[in-house]
């Protein structure tokens, strides 16, 4: 499969997976109980959430697309694609999830994305 198509699949599935997972976890609310019984109750509740299951499916698609990409492309080509999702997801977190993203967060996200891209050189 064409490398650019695979990168498109990786970016789209990572972004969708993260957005759905964040939205569902926020809907559930802050997890405060960390003893085994409390955690089991939380995960039984979460296992019934359709969007959360969909987010894990999208993450699996992203993982297998990444593995397929690595069969034909170098890591130095594949990893910067995941770096690009950091800036893209910050943008969507601001406008879709309505998070308050100040200038420090924007600057930090851009620095991290550049750093990840350099890490593969």
């Amino acid at each position: 499969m064409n490398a650019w198509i695979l990168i498109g699949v990786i970016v789209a599935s990572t972004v969708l997976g993260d957005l759905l997972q964040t939205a569902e976890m926020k809907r559930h609310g802050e997890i405060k109980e960390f003893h085994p019984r409390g955690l089991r109750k939380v995960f039984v509740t979460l296992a019934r959430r359709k969007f959360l299951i969909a987010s894990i499916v999208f993450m699996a698609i992203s993982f297998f697309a990444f593995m397929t990409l690595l069969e034909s492309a170098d890591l130095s080509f594949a990893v910067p694609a995941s770096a690009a999702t950091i800036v893209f997801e910050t943008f969507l977190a601001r406008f879709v999830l309505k998070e308050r993203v100040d200038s420090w967060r924007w600057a930090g996200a851009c620095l991290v994305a550049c750093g990840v891209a350099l890490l593969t050189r």
Partner: protein
Amino acid sequence: MESGSGFATTSIRTKTTIFACIVILSNALGNFALAAGMRGRRTESVVDYLAAIFSPWVALGIVLLILWLLSRMTLLSWADLSYVLPVTSLGYVANALVGRFFLNEQITGARWTGTLLIVAGTILVGRGSPATHIEKGRA
């Protein structure tokens, strides 16, 4: 670790730091275990994949990556996605260090620069509040 009720009253910032560390370490160590288990292995059929999955290193890698997924979900139950993404990107640095010290990989000047940029970006994001919606609610 603190008891369940004690942990429930721990501040958001302390909880975030603990869970961000679990996310970063489980990701780096999980990837290392997977890489170690898959090295030199041929996966051409379903049987090959199953044999790989049940080998000790790959199984350990999968357990650690499940821990990564669950701890990241827990972190996202209170922290913003725009905070979690840059902060947990320190996992890329941890991966590079694991590669350097356990797999004898070379770290070039560009990689050190990338590492410094990630650390700088993480410090910039980490100095703010992890959960702006909770902050807004309390204001």
